[in-house]
């Protein structure tokens, strides 16, 4: 099982990422489809943070997977929609 999980983690998949607020500014775009070998949404955030210099640590960001709040440990699968949610300020 562990060996299989490792294989899955290394597999490449295409996911859609939408950006809002500060992350949209720092990424310079609102949405992109990208290929990644990241296994979880946390790995994906850290990958993108390194690439684009996001100032927010993941501990101050929430994450949604396919328009539902998700845990950082959630696995990514092909065609997932991922949204990283900076600290909110509605109202």
């Amino acid at each position: 099982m562990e060996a299989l999980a490792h294989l899955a983690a290394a597999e490449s998949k295409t996911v859609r990422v939408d950006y809002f607020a500060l992350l949209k500014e720092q990424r310079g775009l609102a949405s992109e489809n990208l290929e990644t070998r990241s296994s979880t949404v946390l790995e994906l955030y850290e990958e993108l943070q390194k690439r684009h210099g996001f100032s927010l640590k993941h501990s101050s960001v929430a994450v949604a997977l396919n328009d539902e709040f998700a845990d950082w440990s959630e696995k990514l699968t092909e065609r997932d929609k991922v949204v990283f949610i900076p600290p909110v300020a509605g109202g």
Partner: protein
Amino acid sequence: MFTLSDTPIDADALKRLVNTQEAGAYVAFEGWVRNHNEGQAVTGLEYEAYEALAVKEGNKIIDEAQKFSILKAHCVHRTGALKIGDMAVMVVVTSAHRKEAFAACEFIIDEIKKRLPIWKRETYVDGSTSWVNCAHNHEAVHETAQASGAKS
């Protein structure tokens, strides 16, 4: 029901939505754009929402407010550019007795502010802008994930 609006909120229309003959109490909350925030003079602001999730989570909050035995509840949140004095959000609740309407109205706006993926960018008198809650305090634990009961 919860909705987002990119045009000015019609307070009277919202009030009519919760009107019913059984209602003895009506409580409304409106959030207005202030001319200052944490000591800085604000000249305007913009709200951005992650619409699909904001609407879903907003309606969940309205449903949860039924625990106060209210009759009807509704909330609208603005998106887009707002000026000083503009209404950013409105919550309206009716109930037979006033205690329930107050409790539900305060619950709804508290949860809306904590849980909805909506962001505010303020413009200051010197022309600078800032995403509220993002510029400072990057280490703060994110309230949304904690309050909303994430998937697993």
